[in-house]
């Protein structure tokens, strides 16, 4: 949707998964991260995200909101950890809750607190989704 002048080819990079019930956030994050040259998959709650993962999607990172109608972030994370095929996918909790950090720690993940800076978001995306040269 946007020009990707300096971006490397998408094949070098793992996709980003964003699970958030807020449509505006999904829309904006998708646009900005795609603009950096990453594929973005979105889901509005945990069960939608699981459906996509079960169909074979393996993102480099899952950005996970906590409060969502339907399946919330915490439940999603517990299921994901329990499934060996999915357990290794890194998860970053993205939450506006005051105790987001604490919940993230209890779930064994990093966290990014809303409202966050675009650079922080992109830093996380790069860290998890860029396939490092020596592995490639």
């Amino acid at each position, binding site marked *: 949707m946007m020009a990707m002048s300096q971006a490397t080819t998408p094949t070098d990079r793992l996709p980003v998964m964003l699970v958030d019930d807020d449509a505006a956030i999904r829309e904006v994050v998708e*646009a900005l991260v795609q603009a950096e040259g990453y594929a973005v998959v979105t889901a509005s709650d945990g069960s939608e995200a699981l459906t996509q993962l079960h169909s074979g999607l393996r993102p480099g990172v899952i950005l996970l909101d906590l409060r969502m109608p339907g399946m919330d972030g915490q439940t999603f994370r517990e299921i994901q950890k329990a499934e060996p095929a999915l357990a290794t996918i890194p998860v970053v909790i993205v939450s506006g809750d005051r105790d987001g950090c604490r919940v993230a720690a209890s779930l064994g993940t990093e966290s990014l607190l*809303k*409202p966050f800076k*675009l*650079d922080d978001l992109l830093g996380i995306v790069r860290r998890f989704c860029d396939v490092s040269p020596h592995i490639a």
Partner: protein
Amino acid sequence: MRSGLLVRIGREVAFLHDRVHEAAYSLVPPGARPDAHLAIGRLLLSRLPDRAIDERIFEVATQLNRGRDRITDPGEKALLRDLDVRAAEKARKTAAYSSARVYFNHAAALLPSNAWTAVYGEAFALELGLGECDYLVGDFATAEARLGALRDKARSEADRARIEVTRAHLYQLSGRFGDAWSAVRHALERFGITFPARDDEVATALDQEVARIRAELASRRVADLPELTAPDLRLVPALFIAGGVPAYNAWPQAWPLHWAKAVRFTLEHGRCVESCTFFALYASVLAARGEIKAACDLSDAALRLADQYDDPWTKLQVRSCDASQISHWRRHLASSIPPIAPFFAAAQERGDVVSAGIIAIITAWSWLDKGTPLDELRKVQDDYLASARESHNDVVAQTLRLMQQYVACLRGKTLAPASFDDDTFTERAFLETVSGARFLAGVSLHRILKEMAAFVYGRFDEALDAAEQKPAALGAAGSFLYEATHRFYAALTKAALYTQASEEQREAFARDLREEEQRHASWARHCPDNFRDRHALLSAEIARIERRDLDAERLYEAAIESARRSGFVQNEALGLERASCFYRARGFTLTADAYIREARAAYLRWGASGKVLAIDAAHPDIAETVAASPPAPVSGTFEARSEQLDLFSVVKASQTISSEFELEKLVGTLLGAVLEHCGARRACLALVRDGALRLMAEGVVAERQTTTHLLEAVPLDASALVPTSLVDEVTSTKKPVIIDDAASPGSRLEADPGAVERHARSVLCYPIVRGAELVGVLYLENDLASGVFTPERLTTLSLLASQVAISVENALALAAERKVRIVAQEAEARAAFLADAGATLAASLDYEETLPQVARMCVRSLADVCTIDVLEGAELRRYAVAHRDPSITPILRELERRYPLRSGSRRPPFEVLRTRAPLVVQDPSPEVIRRYTDDDEHARLVAELSLRSFCWWPLRARGEVLGVLALGSRQKEHYHEFAVGLAGELATRVAVAVDNARLYREAQHAIRLRDEFLSTASHELRTPLTSLQLVIEGLVRGARQMVPGASPAMLDVALRQTGRLTTLVGQLLDVSRIQGGKLRLELEDVELVSLGEQILERIRVQSAASGAPIRLHTRGPIWGHWDRSRVDQLLTNLLSNALVYGERRPVDLTLTCSDDRARIEVRDEGIGIPEDRLPHVFERFERATSTRNFGGLGLGLFIAREIVQAHGGAISVVSKVGRGSTFTVDLPLRSVAEEVAAGSQ
């Protein structure tokens, strides 16, 4: 089991009979028994849960012990050792010392050979425990040998101190106070706490300590002292405690210093639980020094401090200190006895025979000084004596015996007046025992009792002798009551001897008397109830000596009056007797006789029959009217009797009369005597009560039987039993009226219907006069003969009447005093009960825990069954059931199971809820029970509880009824004024506790809601900020890199987010406006349908996103006078909610209109609201669903409700989980305020 020798009880199997058990046991070969026991023991140990092992510890340990020799494994040995110790501790706790010793011995036998190095702590504790048990079972020699050996093995100062504490107990118990004291003293020295060597240095040392403590306490509060933490000093307080009683008895001068040192130790090193006792006892030292105010304050501080420690024993000890040494300096004696009683019981229970003994003596003394009638006192002494003997506490038992001999002496049962010797007791043997044991308190008490008895019998020289020989223990701990009593008697003795004393003696006496008068004046100031009478009597005696006759007269009266008011009958008697002496010495013989007669009556009431005999012997003129041995009874009917005045029978009658102190009995006895001795066939007694004559009783002779019955104080005028004209005459003239034949023509009673009906012939109306005052009238009739009431009979009657007058007055005074005493006792019991209940209720906010405790307290004193039900919603929930008789447990269970509390029933709790007033049902008939129960079976079960009185109290707090307290008693008429009042006060306290707990819960809930709200709010505000921030960053980045950073779509997003933020901020502002009461409406004409359409249009985007269409149902325009923007907000809120929670199913908006109201209905088919949340959905910060799922601040419905209410409308919701919700709003077309305005125009 098949042969029936074993039976199954529940899940257990048991032998059919003990015999079967024995037979089975004898079948096991003796050699195999240890193994069998061991196997059983191991089985028990492995199968029983831990708690059950504790319960059955004796059984488990016994089984294993019997197979002990077969145990080889050291681990198992250690385990059994531990079990034995546990069994021993448990036995010791229940005062079963010989069992405890057995188990300790088992444990000791199981110690490894190198125990003193390998398991020193355990070995030490075992030996100490054994030593203690040795002495508690009376094996003193073994105990001493064991402890002596243990001292050499002790490794630390603390352990050595521990031994000394035990040794002190041991010596003390075998009466060796001197040894006990020196054990403690030497142990204290090791901690640098020393006592002077000589008696004369003690006083100076004490003065110094007192001054230092005063200075320290001036700047510090007891409550602020730090805790004693130094571990090596932790045993010092126990040493002080152990040394208290020995010091008092062995070296009384050092006793105050002992406690002063203990207090200084606390001030220096910090406080501990024992400090409470130190302060309490030091308070008594201060009291003995005359610093009564400071003593009371410090005792209070000790009581408060004790409350900070969770140690019931210390609390009791401090309370008992206060009761035995402080209380009588500020409160009536009667009130110091109840607080000691539980201390005695607790001391007995925990095996502290030393404290129990001391308390027994002190309490017995309080009973004595309280003026308890001597026969009753004797019973009290018996009780304490029995338990002192049971615990082998010989010196205490002997001392209690001494006190009994004092009683016997006053009753004239000993060999000589003022001697305590008789067949069972000699003073010499007593003194040998107590002096041998250095139990100086016993020696002191002997002197004091001797002094008192001698004084009562007028043997003043002997009294003085005893007083002057006072042993050293007196004065050392001068705050005991008996010390004060000693001072009183010593002073009285000197006053009595003054006139016959030598010049030199007089001077000394006068000085002593002045000093004592001042001391008593101070005591009387601090506690008039206990000391005013004594002070007045001393003052009277001084006035007599100084020949201030008028003062003396007044002071004697004051002394008598005060003693009477305080119930000190012995002091009243003393006062009366001293007054009699005073008048006699001044030549007023009649007055003196009157006083001695009164004194005699008081001594008689006290029960001092020996003294009464002595008075009779000394005053034969008085004895003639009141004393002498009763002769054989004479025949009782008129016909059989001679006309002769039978003085003896009169004396007998008057004696009987004066022995009755209860008015009812007195009246009956009196009428019986009158009928028997005066030739009457019918007698009535009227007494002046409340200023008017009232008929108290009637007696009739019929068929040679005399019957009397009481009348309920009927006013004389209203009764035909007595001719009023006669009574009026007698009342005004105070002279008897005799009519020889009322039936003869022209008699004064010819026209009296009552007299005519009864065929009265001889009639006598006799005034009963006391002083110049008429106290009653005796009316006698004879229907058989005329002229019966001769002047001789009149003499008889006059003797009886004078006795009656005195007795009636005494009985009335006694009744009044009893009434006062009962009221005081009731008030005290009430205060104590309520205080306990209050403390229980305050101990926890969890009333599920406290209410059962309160119910249990109720069944100890107030009821046989108690239940407490608390309202939850519309239903009563039973929080507590308690009952006294275990046999009714099944009935109560059955009742609970079959007849649970259901609202709307006619059962009493619901009636109380309805009426909000207490309900008392006394002795209900089966019909009444049936009326309050559900059916016949229910009534039958209730009747089976055999309760006879019931009382239900609403639990009311802040005007709300929160539940019901129910009490049931097996006593008839139990819930009279006192019990019902007490129940009411209890109900109030329970209600307040429940209310407080609820308020606390509500407050907690509100705090939780607020926290959740803050969390939600921050989440809700951050979410739009996040997208906004990202969009702007995208724009900035695009601008820098000269590339488009954001699409128009994203700018749209950004705009929407600012809209969201605006709405959120608006909601928050609305809430704060509502809370500030500033939600103002700007009313205008608004058309609801078109407004609805506009809103639908506006949220179509949202509606489309959620996939749910909104359908509008309406029949045309609806005009109303409303705040347009607020109604808009209301509709928007309701519709947004419907969309959010509507599960993407269609939402219906229906707008209709009646005459004066518009109705808005928003219906969805979504997730619905759980029933228990429904009442709360309109509250602030509440939301129906759990917080995590849906967005929003949870303020929408709250704001909606506020808007509706501001318009004078109503909002409601109907919902079912999984089926959807319907919100209905009714809005008046014009607001109420407007209507009022329109109406007034």
